[in-house]
């Protein structure tokens, strides 16, 4: 009991405080380069053109501002949410790293131990990401243009392979649930791609993940409820 008291009453409240503080600082910091352009070089945007830019960007992305945090929350938890959205690259890097960390530490997602291990996994992935990008930007185009075109083309296939491999890693633990969800997800994406949901704004960007996450949660709970009664 003292374990969960420590987690709930000491660890989480402190993380909420730090997470919110860093979130606010991050919003401020993201404006610094724009302000430097103005103060140092006298370059301010054309404000009325910027308003139309904001509207076009919001038309494509505003749903994602809300749907992504809601969809990923059950996967990454409260502390992970603070980290993931300040650092970006969530589905292609933070979630894979958090879940592989849980696998190798042999802890279950959704437990206090699982949440702490996920935090360690995400933190490490953020540091490695920044280090690799920093080396890349200093070596810059010299390094990247030295790569043959075949290599850069091949890199396109790395993320699809990663998602396939991660799916198998987790599917092995609950074959039945994974099978059902995967089949339903394929049907859903065929429907989305053929424009069935075009009446919902920006649906192709966020609908799939949202429905899959909450659908899988619902199916998992229903399946296990049935088991207990039987």
């Amino acid at each position, binding site marked *: 009991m003292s374990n969960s008291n420590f987690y709930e009453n000491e660890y989480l409240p402190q993380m909420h405080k730090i997470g919110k503080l860093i979130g606010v600082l991050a919003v401020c910091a993201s404006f610094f380069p724009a302000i430097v352009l103005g103060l140092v070089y006298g370059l301010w945007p054309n404000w009325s053109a910027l308003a139309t830019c904001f509207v076009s960007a919001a038309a494509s992305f505003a749903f994602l501002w809300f749907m992504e945090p809601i969809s990923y929350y059950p996967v990454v938890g409260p502390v992970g949410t603070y980290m993931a959205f300040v650092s970006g690259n969530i589905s292609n890097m933070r979630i894979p790293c958090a879940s592989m960390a849980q696998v190798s530490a042999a802890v279950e997602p959704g437990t206090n131990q699982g949440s702490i291990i996920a935090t360690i996994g995400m933190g490490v992935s953020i540091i490695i990401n920044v280090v690799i*990008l920093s080396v890349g930007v200093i070596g810059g185009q010299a390094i990247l243009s030295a790569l043959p075109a075949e290599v850069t083309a091949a890199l396109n296939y790395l993320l699809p*392979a990663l998602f396939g491999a991660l799916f198998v890693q987790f599917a092995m633990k609950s074959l039945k649930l994974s099978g059902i969800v995967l089949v339903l*997800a394929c049907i859903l994406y065929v429907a989305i791609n053929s424009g069935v949901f075009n009446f919902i704004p920006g649906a192709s960007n966020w609908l799939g993940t949202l429905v899959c*996450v909450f659908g899988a949660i619902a199916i998992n709970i229903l399946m296990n409820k049935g088991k207990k009664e039987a």
Partner: protein
Amino acid sequence: MNAMQIANSMPMWITCGVAVVLVIAQAVIFVKKAFEAGPKVGLSKEQMKHAVKSSALTSIGPSIVILSGMLSLLISVGGPMAWMRLSFIGSVMFESIAAGIGTGSVGVALGVDELTPLALTMAVWTMILGSIGWIIFSTFAADKMDKVQKKMSGGNSAVMGLISTGAMIGVFSSMVAQRVVTLNKNALATVLGAILMYVMMQLSKKVPALKEWNLTIAILVAMVIVAVI
């Protein structure tokens, strides 16, 4: 000074550096706190070391993909912005679309026309304004979602476990299905990644030393096979 000299100037490096330092600081603080909290919730040093190692290995592949995406952004908005945006908040897809919307509003097609200082300014502002919604919502909703989840599960830890396992399988099913239904080389890479991971998992039951390399080996081999075909 032309637009690219401004985009790659020292003041830009410094201000973008502030944001990158903030991301690193967050990661270091949260990892440190997690290491302190670990033993108190019954985690061993060994478990936490394994977590660090496997996450580090898993990071390498995606980081290289992000790095190659940075190249296209680097050419269009300069080194500092590309470096900052992909370390902080962003993803390659969002940043290039937002930058394109910004420059387009003053008649400069991103990656086609020569960047003007005004177009650079518009791109920078659009990237910022288009992305702060994620941070603002997630920062202020995280503790509320925590409460909602607890209410939904009624504080029952078995249900919390079902929610998390379900969510995990939902996320990866979504990522896989999205690529498989295209029936192109991306679909092939997804399926091969899955098959090779299965093979590696069976293999590492016999050779436990392989276990932490399962994922890295599976995805690299899948990538090479698809690229060669």
